[in-house]
């Protein structure tokens, strides 16, 4: 089992270190993920009902559904 895991680890390690044109794609992916999760998600896309309990969320939605 450990041997299998070691082989898998080596497979990925050699794969990543042997990359040529793929390196710039990975940089692009990382930049994008950082932008999405550390900037957009944290500062611009906070869930509208964040911090509310389940019951409070129900009340917010009920208010909207029953007072058109």
């Amino acid at each position, binding site marked *: 089992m450990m041997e299998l895991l070691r082989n898998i680890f080596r497979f990925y390690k*050699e794969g990543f270190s042997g990359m040529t*044109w*793929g390196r710039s794609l990975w940089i692009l992916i990382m930049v994008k993920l950082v*932008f*999405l999760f550390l900037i957009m998600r944290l500062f*611009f*896309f906070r*869930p509208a009902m964040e911090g509310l309990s389940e019951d409070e969320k129900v009340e917010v939605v009920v208010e909207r559904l029953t007072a058109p």
Partner: protein
Amino acid sequence: MDASLIDWSRLQFAMTAAYHWIFVPLTLGLSLIVSVMETLFVVYKDEFWKRVTKFWMKIFAINFAVGIATGIILEFEFGTNWSNYSWFVGDIFGAPLAIEGIFAFFMESTFFAVMFFGWDKVSSRFHLTSTWLTAVGTSLSAFWILVANGWMQHPVGTEFNPDTVRSEMISFWAVVSNPVALSKFSHAIFSGWMTGAIVVAGISSWYLLRKREVRFASSSILVASIIGIIGGLATMMSGDKSGVDIAKYQPMKLAAAEGLRDGGKAASFSIVPGVEIPGMLSILATHDIDGYVPGINDILNGYTDNDGNVVPSVKEKIERGHEAIAALKRYRETKESSPDVSFKSLKSFQENSQYMGYGYLSSPDAVIPSIPLVYWSFRAMVGLGSFLMLLLFILSYFTWKKRLENLKWLHWVTILSIPLVYICGQAGWIVAEVGRQPWTIQDLLPVNVAVSALDSGAVQTTFFLFLSVFALFLVIELSILIKAIKKGPQVD
């Protein structure tokens, strides 16, 4: 609710979804084309096909890298801009999207890595299996997303719980086997094959135009055009099934797509305004030349469908929607204090709940989507799709006859068809999504209730921020792609 907030929220979601759809169809199509090419390498043991496969895998990887995570933004928007909707659908969306995440992560990340890192490390058959499984994984991911989308178009297998005010799943199988989801899935997958085929043919034609990589380009075009023709024919068949589903479950979408004010039996299909094929719409919508197709006015005023069911007027649906909403309110207010009233209210709610969404509409006309946009988008989709099919047949014919190399006009037409296949796909989604307005969930939840109470200015800010960032990423992708294409496969 502020109309500007609804419009900006819709526009933002539409932009994000449209951007996401730039990458998805090419991933779907190219993953299959690459799998077929690698199969040719393994079967014929010809190194030429290995190098062809490696080049298109590179294009696949660039598209995949820029497209990756663009779908996550849609999930951000669900929580931020569409929080009422997210709560309302929570359980139904949760299951398919969770399965999609698992498939996307495990299948794609595992086999994708073998595809790129495993050329000299695993056997050729194992590598080929990984390439095919990557293709299967991308299609399965699309399946679960379209199950979620199909449920919004035709909500089945669920029940609205007035205590938790959300739809709860009562039959996973009904949700998964939703006919609308299956039609959408097959239509999306097969049209993705066409997209992949046109992009491969277009890039290959550029090489032929420059008299470079001739064997590579001709061989790529042959494989791509065969896959594209199969995909195109299957797209037509799934489109036919989709038309029948829309006629049955979303008749207003069909009426808008046809600009059909007054329907009837043996309804005519509009090619462009003033040019019609008698009886054709009935055939497409019901597979019967005498089938009844309701027009916009019929839907507004009520009609009897082909199964003999009386469909109420929109005015009556609005009244029943008001009754459902009032009953829901009464039920919740009297749940603790007056069980009898509460029980009667619940019964009244259940009798009218199928029309609940209509109770939020300001007037019957609110059920009519933008007719010009849906009408012309449908024609763009069908017209471009037909043109691209013809092009694929012509390409395969001249490739087969070995006369493709010097047909400069055909090279140019094929190169210029690359943007057309994207316009075709986007037009299809405009028909599907604008055509179902005002509903986020058909008949149950219109956009004005689904949207979060945010400041419209904040939504505008994120819209323009996204627009700038998306444009930047697109420019980066195109520049990496162009660089890779200019360098070429160097296989001849």
